[in-house]
């Protein structure tokens, strides 16, 4: 049985629904005077961050602390990719300290997979984002947010996202969020459309379980949720698009475009937003935008994942693809 969470593609539909259902119960802890559970008392979790990501680290840390785990934060300064042995050495150091789980963020695609399948360490590995590969807990919190908004908080229990139409817009090529979401949303029965300029769609995308469109306007009226991805301005210099202005004109979400969406449809963003680039302030601050909610949901999802992977004598989540050595 797999005891890591490396890729959203590894989750079965039932695994994913169990995680969402568990997160729904975890969310209730946040409403209590004492937002803490004794469940992971005595377990040690390391947040191993080779890339700066204060948001994701804080979210995991909050989840770990709410479950009473002992938390160690390890932020690697500088680039580790230039010194390959540092991941192995760090892993072996942590192993010697007796950690139960490693939450890893790494700039190199596949680093968490490598950690989980190497003989460097025994601990459970949870991928908190690797290169342009995967960010499974982000996809889970996005799915959680969609289920709450589009199906219902209580009505959603036990349910997936069958028939929901999700549009993901922006820099798909460099986005681990897009990859994870396509995998998970497909598993949960949603219909996914990716919208991007052709330069920001990877070669080989034809095998992904989703539709591709270069035209945002034509997809809006058929979307239950529109997820905007961050677009880094620097991409402009590598000729992925001509100018920032042209990008936001063709692929940015403004009030006029939002008005074309069905009334119930929501706007999502994994953050941090580049206002004026992929999203206008008007949209970002509107009722329909779930950015803040997504942050809160992130803690619940991560509590659920940690509980299901570490809360017992073996993980409750089965995996289909990533095999343990």
């Amino acid at each position, binding site marked *: 049985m797999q005891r890591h969470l490396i890729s959203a593609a590894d989750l079965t539909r039932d695994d994913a629904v*169990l995680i969402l*259902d*568990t997160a729904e*119960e*975890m969310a*209730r802890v946040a409403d*209590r*005077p*004492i937002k*803490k*559970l*004794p*469940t992971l008392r005595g377990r040690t979790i390391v947040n191993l961050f080779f890339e700066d990501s204060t948001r994701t680290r804080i979210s995991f840390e909050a989840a770990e602390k709410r479950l009473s785990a002992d938390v160690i934060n390890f932020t690697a300064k500088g680039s580790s990719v230039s010194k390959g042995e540092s991941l192995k050495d760090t892993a072996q150091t942590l192993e010697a300290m007796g950690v139960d789980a490693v939450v890893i963020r790494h700039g190199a695609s596949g680093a968490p997979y490598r950690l989980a399948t190497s003989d460097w360490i025994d601990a459970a590995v949870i991928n908190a984002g690797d290169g342009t590969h995967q960010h499974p807990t982000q996809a889970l919190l996005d799915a959680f947010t969609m289920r709450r908004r589009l199906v219902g908080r209580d009505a959603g229990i036990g349910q997936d996202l069958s028939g929901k139409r999700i549009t993901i817009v922006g820099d798909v090529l460099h986005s681990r969020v897009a990859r994870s979401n396509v995998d998970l949303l497909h598993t949960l029965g949603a219909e996914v459309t990716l919208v991007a300029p052709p330069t920001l769609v990877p070669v080989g995308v034809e095998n992904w379980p989703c539709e591709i469109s270069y035209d945002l306007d034509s997809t809006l009226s058929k979307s239950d949720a529109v997820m905007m991805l961050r677009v880094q301005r620097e991409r402009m210099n590598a000729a992925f698009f001509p100018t920032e202005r042209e990008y936001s004109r063709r692929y940015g979400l403004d009030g006029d475009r939002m008005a074309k969406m069905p009334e119930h449809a929501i706007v999502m963003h994994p953050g941090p937003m580049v206002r004026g680039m992929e999203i206008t302030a008007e949209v970002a601050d509107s009722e329909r935008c779930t950015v803040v909610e997504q942050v809160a949901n992130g803690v619940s999802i991560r509590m659920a994942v940690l*509980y*299901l*992977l570490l*809360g*017992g*004598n*073996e*993980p*409750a989540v089965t995996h289909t693809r990533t095999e343990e050595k």
Partner: protein
Amino acid sequence: MDTEHDKQHDEADARAVLEAPDIARVLTRIAHEIVERAKGADDVVLLGIPTRGVFLARRLADKLEEITDRKIPVGSLDITMYRDDLRMHPPRALARTEIPGDGIDGRLVVLVDDVLFSGRTIRAALDALNDIGRPRAVQLAVLVDRGHRELPIRADYVGKNLPTSLRETVKVQLAEEDGRDTVLLGAKRTSPGAPQ
């Protein structure tokens, strides 16, 4: 939970110790006892322990409302995350914790469960309550007390005291979950071990 819902358990071998009318009768009795001991049950909050404790709590609440003609707050308290045997099993699916709107601070909380056995569930429930608020007092109502306590815990309201051996299983079935009301006493198929 203390109840053993053994999938392998052969119901044909089990003997009914309480039938539907008995269950209804003991719940009525417990409701009256609560009113009596809680002096009118003004501040009572019933919290059922999932799964079957929740159904029993709702039934008790209905009876209390009949007796007192007042709305009785009823909720559920999932104790999974507080169990002391988490590391002995795969993680279990969580059940709902639903605290009535006015909370539990300063109130008399009556925990409701189907079977009282080792007492570990109630220990976990007391811990869970501690994180939710500060009741004036906590009492315990159970449908069946089968003995074999491992902790200094006793019930305030007992539907039926049922002396059992560790080789036996006690299975509570309720209409809401199982389609009928009954308490079955059966023999364990596997070798007897520690409770839970």
